[in-house]
């Protein structure tokens, strides 16, 4: 849902930037900075661990 919303908003943001500044540069520079920040954050973020399911008795005996 977030992806769809962002895709819908993208052209509107770029159009408003063009209208306000006469160029797309500000928005693309801002998005580039955000991309770098998110890339660094994705590199260092701790992945949540999956939890063990409560396996049925027959399945437990098989292990």
């Amino acid at each position: 849902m977030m992806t769809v919303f962002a895709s819908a908003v993208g052209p509107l943001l770029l159009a408003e930037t063009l209208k306000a500044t006469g160029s797309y540069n500000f928005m693309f520079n801002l998005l580039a900075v955000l991309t770098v920040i998110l890339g660094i954050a994705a590199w260092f973020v701790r992945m949540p661990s999956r939890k063990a399911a409560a396996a049925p008795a027959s399945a437990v005996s098989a292990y």
Partner: protein
Amino acid sequence: MGAAVLKFGWRPTWGAIGWVLLIVVAPISWLLIRNQPEDRGLELDGISEPASKFTDLTTVEALRSSAFWIFALSSSLFGLVYSGISLFKRIDSGAARLQRIGLPRRSSDQHHARAAREFRRRLSCHQMAHPEAYRPRNGGTRCLARHVAAGPDLHPVLIYGAIMGIAGGSSPLYSSPSGDRFSDAPIWAAFKDGRK
């Protein structure tokens, strides 16, 4: 979408796509799409035990993790940039761009048809000015030129340009109507003022 953008403008077109997604696609998706067979009380054929001893996080647990937000924002940012660039690039590289170089406002199909006509005219001139290039020993070139001359649209022209470009041959695209190569009058200049 390109035709709708040219006819109604990008904002109404973009809004219409959004409403269609909200009113038509979202309800259908909500009614028909399920994540896994278990959501409908079904199991995969031949499997009576859990496929994995691990389970996924719940929605609340996922929402509380920073990894979820970082990757969700990253994919959203990609969608934001991609949709913006693809929409405005399409518009800028289409009719608006042609208008900027002075061409009258027409649909891309009309521009293609005019470009194809002008190309065929130049090809004919080129054949007359440089008959040696179309001698029987150059059967492929001659056959291709005939096919282009008979074609109703731009596609044979594009194929011709691609093949001649790959083969390293001279292309009438760079020739003036008199047959001279590398004219400074590009092909669109011939119908810039609507003469064609």
